[in-house]
């Protein structure tokens, strides 16, 4: 076996750094889904009647829906009755970090998000979600000064019911798709953000996820509303432990941008990718993420770096209703070992002079498979719409695959569309070429992968860009060759 091949093999086998389990008492409902479970969930969260009603409506609708089958991914059939839909640590409400279970805090340490340190250095407010319940929310007071509401979704239901009632389901109604309906019925928690008129959120908002219990689905619900003239940047990052059974993640994220407002949503996702040899045990990640540029001059921007996850199915989308609104999507997806990803975005142009930009970069290695679907729809009334799409893939080795399905639906002749796609292979030849120019293999790998991703990395907030680069290295070290 050649030297390069050896290096590659050893890196591909690098253990998932974050693979460990926290042993904390948690209360988990028995597996299965029916109206009683939903009522129990709602009761445990002490939700008002209207919230329970909404959940039940969604559940009843879900019963009539069929799981979608068209994704270019394969997975063993999910037994929805074998999953528990709720998990909560057994402790009472906490008012300060001091009261947080020390084991829990240690967990966060291992994850690299020590809350105290973050408080001191980065000034980032962290809403840490431990499995299905928010445990610690810091900086509430400082944000409150600016008038920014940033709390767990459960809290928002209790403390800001008007806002929830106004916006929940306005971007992703429970009728939208199978997993959105499921989520609407059993969502556990998530983040709620409201930025009032004219306010520029003073810090980047962030949430960390973690799925702990085996067989627990993660049903996050996030709602971010930016009122007129406001601006917010939100970071979402996830890690998950090593598990033998696949874990289900069906989240819904809704973004609403009013006139002249901007929402920037960044994700660095590092799910357990499945056992390197068999592919078993990874995360099923079915997410519906959508933003509506409701009024003029609004802007929504999705940036994501994804590695890991056994199966990913997500399409962050933008509905460009307001005139002059702008939707952007920047993505780097890495699939290795047995990962499969079916991802992409949808940009729907409705208003006049709307603009969308899609830059998608995929890196496939090992036996990873990636499918990119980029949808751009220009509705009849969307005068002067502009779209630029660029979709590039790098294949490392010869057992992985990448497929691109751009679909462009233009119903207004004044639209201006640009599309580019590139597929290339990084192999021994590129590395030898660099070697022959005096550049070591390690530096060559760095050059190539960073060069490929830089357009997307440039869009990430600084802290995330650093983590993203590190994440890429963990996922790809030596797999280029």
């Amino acid at each position, binding site marked *: 076996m*050649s*030297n390069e091949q050896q290096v590659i093999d050893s890196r591909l086998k690098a253990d998932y750094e974050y693979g460990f389990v926290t042993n904390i008492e948690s209360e988990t409902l028995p597996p299965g889904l029916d109206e009683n479970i939903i009522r129990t969930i709602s009761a445990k969260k002490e939700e008002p009647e209207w919230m329970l009603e909404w959940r039940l409506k969604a559940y009843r609708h879900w019963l009539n829906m069929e799981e979608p089958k068209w994704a270019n991914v394969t997975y063993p059939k999910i037994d929805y009755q074998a999953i528990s839909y709720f998990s909560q640590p057994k402790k009472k409400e906490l008012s300060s970090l001091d009261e947080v279970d020390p084991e829990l805090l240690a967990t966060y340490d291992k994850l690299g998000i020590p809350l105290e340190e973050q408080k001191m250095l980065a000034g980032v407010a962290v809403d840490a979600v431990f499995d299905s319940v928010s445990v610690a929310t810091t900086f509430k007071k400082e944000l409150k000064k600016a008038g920014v509401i940033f709390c767990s979704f459960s809290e928002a239901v209790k403390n800001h019911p008007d806002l929830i009632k106004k916006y929940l389901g306005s971007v992703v109604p429970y009728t939208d798709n199978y997993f959105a309906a499921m989520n609407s019925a059993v969502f556990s928690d998530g983040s709620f953000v409201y930025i009032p008129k004219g306010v520029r959120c003073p810090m980047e908002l962030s949430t960390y996820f973690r799925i702990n219990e085996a067989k627990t689905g993660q049903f996050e619900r996030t709602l971010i509303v930016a009122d007129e003239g406001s601006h917010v940047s939100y970071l979402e990052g996830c890690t998950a432990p090593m598990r033998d059974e696949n874990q289900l993640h069906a989240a819904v994220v809704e973004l609403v941008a009013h006139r002249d407002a901007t929402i920037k949503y960044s994700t660095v996702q590092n799910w357990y990718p499945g056992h390197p040899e068999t592919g078993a045990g990874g995360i099923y990640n079915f997410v519906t993420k959508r933003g509506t540029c409701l009024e003029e001059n609004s802007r929504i921007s999705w940036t994501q770096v994804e590695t890991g996850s056994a199966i990913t199915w997500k399409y962050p989308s933008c509905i460009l209703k307001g005139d002059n609104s702008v939707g952007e999507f920047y993505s780097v997806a890495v699939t290795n070992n047995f990962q499969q990803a079916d991802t992409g975005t949808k940009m729907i142009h409705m208003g006049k002079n709307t603009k969308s930009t899609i830059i998608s970069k995929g890196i496939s290695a090992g036996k990873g498979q990636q499918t990119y679907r980029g949808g751009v729809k220009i509705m009849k009334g969307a005068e002067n719409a502009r779209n630029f799409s660029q979709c590039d893939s790098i294949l490392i080795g010869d057992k992985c695959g990448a497929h691109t399905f751009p679909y462009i639906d233009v119903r207004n002749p004044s639209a201006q569309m640009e599309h580019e796609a590139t597929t290339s292979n990084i192999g021994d030849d590129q590395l030898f070429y*660099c*070697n*022959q*120019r*005096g550049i070591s293999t390690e530096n060559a790998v760095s*050059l190539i992968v960073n*060069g*490929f991703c830089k357009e997307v990395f440039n869009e990430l907030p600084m802290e995330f860009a650093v983590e993203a680069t590190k994440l890429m290295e963990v996922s790809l070290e030596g797999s280029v060759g």
Partner: protein
Amino acid sequence: MMLEIKNLYAGVDDKQILKGINLAIMPGEMHTIMGRNGSGKSTLANVITGREGYAVIKGDILFNGESILDWSPEDRALTGIFMSFQYPVVIPGVNNTYFLKAALNAKRKHKDEKELDAADFLKLIKSKLAEMDMDANYLQRAVNEGFSGGEKKRNEILQMLTLEPALSVLDETDSGLDIDALKIVAEGVNKYRSPKRSFLVITHYQRLLNYIDPDFVHVLIDGQIVKSGGKDLAVDLEEKGYSWLEA
């Protein structure tokens, strides 16, 4: 002696291709290797530059008196061996300027020389671009991305001029070029010649020798150098083909 190949037997995938090559290149000399497809020309180039997958069964390769058989490709490069590839690869997303600067600075660092900063490098590369009659937009493009066959070969020579190697191995650099591009490449090579620099030019077509002047021509048949001579040997080959040497 700059390059000395001693009784070299080498092959790839269990196939023996080079069967006892002996070659000595002194500083300042240009040697040409000619031969049919499959005669071992590219194998020779790849073994000299240390490409993975090629096995040396017997013999040695010495560069400036030292055996380089155990050296990695980048170490051979840093010590002064350069190859112009027959089929230059594309490295998407990696800017030409950035790449070449990384290579040049790696070399300078190896020689304990000060690395060039972006501004100085830009000045250097622009002058080389002018020499090779290449467009300035080269600077923004990724390595060989979107380059035609001829442009890729010109890029190889441009890199040679920038990295200033002691030994340049040109592997079929003339293949697929139109006359104008060929003239530019030949000019670049000729201008680069000096008493301290040597060339090993591997070619298939006699046409190149209308524009460069090798000191020696060697004919490679079935992994062995069967005849060596001056430039007129190439003319003979042009007229008679290879069969008169194959007997």
